[in-house]
C-alpha cells in the first residue's frame, strides 16, 4: 500500500504512559486509514485514548510502537512535513492555548508568522474567516475577555491560517453553547464538503458525530472496537430492542406511568424519558417485542397512549453496546433508578 493513497494512515500505533509505579496503555495498537476529504470521527468516553491518538498524529507525542503517516509523510521521520500539512486544535482545555494578553488579531498574526504564512495572505484569510464565524467585532479585544465560544472559534481560524489539508480537531465543540456549537459544526462540515479538507474529529458526543461524520471509529480503553458509518454502528446493535412509548399526559402522571412500566417483567430498564410539548416520550429496553408491546399496552390502558413502537437505538445506546458497557448499568447510573 502506498501511504500517499490515504490522507491519514496509522499502523499499530501505541502509546504507553509510565510512571514509577505503573504503566497505562493509552492507545493500544490502533490502525486506521482515512481517505482524502473524509470527515472521520473518533468516538469514545473520557480517558479512552482519543486525545493521545490525535496528539501522536499531530507529532506532539512520540508513539512507543507503530507508525503513522499524514499524506504519506511519517510522523516519526518527517514530523516537520507533517506539521506543514495539519491544522491542530483542542477544545475546552485548549481554550487556554492562546495568548490571553494579546488581542485575537495579534494571536492570529503571531501564529501566521510561526506557520510561515505571508502577512498579506494571512490577513486576508483571517479577515474572511473572522467574518464567516462572526468574530470580526471582537478581534481587537484581548483574548482574556473572550467567551469560550469566541476562543474556540479563534483557535479554529488559527488552525486554518496555513491552509492545511488535514485538520486534527480534539473535541473542538466541548464547552461551547448550543448556538456556537451548531455554527462550528456547520462550518466544519462545509470545510470537508466544499474545500475537500480531511478532518479527524474526536468527540464523546454521539449526536455530534452522527450529524457530522462520514465514518466513525469507536475507541475504548485505547483500542478501536468498531469502524464504520454511523448507520453501520446502529445496525450492528440492532439486537438492542428498544420500544418507544408516547403518551399524551401531564407531569403528574409520569411517576405513576414509570412505576407501572418498571413493574413489568418484560421490560429490562427504562432508558429515557422526556416531555415533548403535550406528550411524554419514554424509551425502554426489552427482550422481545412480541410479548413486551402487548404488555405495555395493557398496563397503560386508561392513559392517552399516542403510540407504542419499535425504535432504532440511538448512537449513544449503540456505542455503549459496542463498548461492552451494559446498557442497564449505565442508564441506572445516569437516572439514579434501579431496575425492579
Amino acid at each position: 500500500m502506498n501511504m500517499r493513497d490515504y490522507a491519514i494512515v496509522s499502523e499499530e500505533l501505541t502509546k504507553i504512559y509510565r510512571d514509577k509505579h505503573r504503566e497505562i496503555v493509552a492507545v493500544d495498537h490502533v490502525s486506521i486509514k482515512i481517505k482524502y476529504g473524509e470527515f472521520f470521527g473518533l468516538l469514545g468516553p473520557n480517558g479512552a485514548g482519543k486525545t493521545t491518538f490525535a496528539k501522536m498524529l499531530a507529532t506532539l507525542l512520540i508513539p512507543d510502537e507503530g507508525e503513522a503517516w499524514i499524506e504519506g509523510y511519517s510522523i516519526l521521520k518527517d514530523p516537520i512535513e507533517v506539521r506543514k500539512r495539519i491544522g491542530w486544535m483542542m477544545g475546552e482545555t485548549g481554550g487556554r492555548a492562546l495568548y490571553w494578553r494579546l488581542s485575537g488579531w495579534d494571536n492570529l498574526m503571531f501564529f501566521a508568522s510561526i506557520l510561515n504564512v505571508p502577512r498579506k495572505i494571512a490577513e486576508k484569510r483571517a479577515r474572511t474567516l473572522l467574518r464567516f464565524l462572526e468574530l470580526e467585532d471582537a478581534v481587537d479585544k484581548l483574548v482574556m475577555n473572550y467567551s469560550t465560544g469566541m476562543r474556540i472559534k479563534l483557535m479554529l481560524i488559527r488552525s486554518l491560517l496555513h491552509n492545511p489539508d488535514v485538520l486534527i480537531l480534539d473535541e473542538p465543540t466541548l464547552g461551547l453553547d448550543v448556538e456556537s456549537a451548531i455554527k462550528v459544526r456547520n462550518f466544519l462540515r462545509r470545510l470537508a464538503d466544499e474545500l475537500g479538507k480531511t478532518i479527524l474529529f474526536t468527540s464523546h458526543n454521539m449526536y455530534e458525530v452522527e450529524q457530522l461524520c462520514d465514518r466513525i471509529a469507536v475507541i475504548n480503553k485505547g483500542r478501536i472496537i468498531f469502524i464504520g458509518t454511523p448507520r453501520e454502528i446502529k445496525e450492528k446493535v440492532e439486537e438492542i430492542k428498544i420500544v418507544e412509548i408516547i403518551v399524551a399526559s401531564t407531569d403528574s402522571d409520569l411517576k405513576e406511568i414509570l412505576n407501572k412500566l418498571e413493574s413489568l417483567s418484560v421490560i429490562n430498564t427504562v432508558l429515557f424519558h422526556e416531555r415533548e410539548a403535550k406528550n411524554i416520550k419514554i424509551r425502554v429496553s426489552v427482550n422481545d417485542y412480541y410479548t413486551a408491546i402487548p404488555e405495555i399496552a395493557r398496563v397503560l390502558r386508561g392513559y392517552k397512549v399516542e403510540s407504542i413502537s419499535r425504535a432504532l437505538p440511538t448512537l449513544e445506546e449503540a456505542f455503549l453496546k459496542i463498548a461492552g458497557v451494559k446498557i442497564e448499568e449505565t442508564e441506572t447510573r445516569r437516572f439514579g433508578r434501579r431496575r425492579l
Partner: protein
Amino acid sequence: MSSISDIIEVFRAREKEHGFHAFIRRALASCFYQLKIYTSYRMNFALDLIDITISALIYYYIGFLVSPQDLMRLGYTPDYIAFALAGIALSRYIWTSVARLAHKMRHEISAGTFESLAAADFDDFHAWLWGQILYGFTWSSSVFFVTILLGYSLGASFTRSLVFWLQAILIVLLTVLIHAGIGVMAAGMYIVHKQLETLLVLLVAVIEFFGGVLYPLSLLWNYPPLYYIAMLIPFTHGLELFRRTIIDELPLTHPLMLRHLIILLVFFPTIFLGFKVFKHYLNKAKKTGLLAAY
C-alpha cells in the same frame, strides 16, 4: 458576512515563505509579540525603572563607605559607583539570558500555548527561541542603558570614547550569547524537570556572586577554592572585560583582556550545545507527554 465561496477564494493562494527570510520573520514575531505581552502589563516597565533607580542610589551611597585606596590596592578603579553600576548593568543580562527562558516555558506549558507552538514548529523551535533571546536582550538592554545613564548622572567615571563603547557592546553580545546557550539548555530541561526553575534562581545568584557584581574579584584570592570556582564561570570573564573596557579603557589586545577573552571564547560553543540539549528534552517530553500541563 463571508460566504464559503469567499473562503474558498482566500484559500487558493498556497505560497509560503521559506528559508532565511521565514526564519527571521518567525524570530521577529516571537520577539515582537512577547514585547506586546510585556507592555500589556502597563506598570511593568515603570516598576522596573523604579527598581533600577533605587539600586543605583543604594550603591551610590554605599560608594561613600568604600575606600578608593582599597579598591585601587585590589587592582580596580577608585570609583565604586562606576564599579558597582557596571556590574549591575551587565548582571541584568544574566537573569534574562539564563533563567527567563525557563520561566517563559513555565508560562507556555501551563497556558497550553507551548503545544500550539509545537504543532506549528518547523525548526525544532530555533526561530522561536532566537526571538525570545532577542526579546530578553532588548529588555535587558533598555535596563542597561538606563543604568549607565544613571551612572553618568551620578558622576560615575565611565568611558566617553565611542571606540571603547563599541568594544563594550561586543563583549556584552558575546557574554549574552554564551549565557543564552545556558538559558536555552535550562529551558529544554525545564520541559521535563519542572523543579528546575527554583534551581535557576539559585544559579543566577551563584553566577552573580562569583562574577563579582558588587565586589572586586581579587578579594577571593585569599580563598583559592572560591577563586577557582569564579574562574570557571563565564560571566566572571565577561564582567571583567566589560569593566576594564568602560572604566579603565583597556583594549582587547591588552594581555589581561586577552586572557579573559580567550577563556570567554572557550565557552562559546555553549550556544550550539544549548539548542542540542533543548531538542533532546523536547523529544523526551514528547515521549513522556509533558508538553502540556492542564
